[in-house]
């Protein structure tokens, strides 16, 4: 039987700024669906992707209340990925760059994510089958 594969992703964009984030999360979703272990190193603004205090809102321009707008938050998508990986018995390791967290006061992240350093990224990359960097423009 083939050894299970591992992919590492480095993300850099802050939430709600760029379409790269949604694209990266969709690729990660595909990886999890294919039974691949996933590591994510969130660098710079990306440490705010799993920030616990993101809140949905009503949208008067759209004419929808908070329930109708049903705004999907990055923290929810990440929590869903963590849960899906767990259901499939996969490893899903989300590491926030600690110094980037400190700069932004972004320490309160959702469960299943952790604080780390570029050394964690190096270790994850070294032990992966491949690495995809999704940088800011």
């Amino acid at each position, binding site marked *: 039987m083939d050894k299970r594969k591992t992919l590492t992703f480095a993300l850099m964009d802050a*939430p*709600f*700024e*760029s*379409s790269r*984030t*949604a694209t990266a*999360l*969709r690729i*990660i*979703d595909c990886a*999890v669906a294919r039974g691949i272990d996933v590591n994510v190193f969130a660098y710079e603004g990306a440490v705010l992707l799993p920030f616990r205090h993101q809140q949905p809102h009503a*949208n*008067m*321009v*759209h004419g*929808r209340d908070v329930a*109708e*707008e*049903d*705004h*999907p938050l*990055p923290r*929810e*998508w*990440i*929590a*869903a*990925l*963590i*849960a*899906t990986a767990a259901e499939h018995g996969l490893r899903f390791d989300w590491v926030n760059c600690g110094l980037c967290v400190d700069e932004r006061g972004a320490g309160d992240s959702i469960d299943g994510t952790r604080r780390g350093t570029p050394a964690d990224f190096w270790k994850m990359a070294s032990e992966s089958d491949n690495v995809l960097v999704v940088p800011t423009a």
Partner: protein
Amino acid sequence: MKVLNIISSAYRAVSEEQDDTIVWLSHALHNAGADLAVLLSGSAVNYVLPAERSSPITIGGRAQRNAPDAHGEVRKLAEKVPVFVIREDLEMRGIAATPDEPFRAITRATLPAFLLSHDHVWHW
């Protein structure tokens, strides 16, 4: 005070925000009383295409119900404020050089005078 919002980068964060953030901001500024016009340039000219579509996405088990409707939102905006489109940017992308009403095409040659006709030009 007459303001021109220039949108030249399309589809930024549209899946996360469920709209284009500057189209949304233009709606909100208009609703707050701003005397506003919008210019679509670069990749943002694609918003005039009625066939432009996004589908809701699902990541993990979290499904989206409301996909962004960039064309619909910019069309609604164009019913309230003038929305201009750069003709050459349409042509370059193989989009009909004369967009449907209520959008208005302008050429690059007319841009200097067009920009000068506004008190503020905000390039997002």
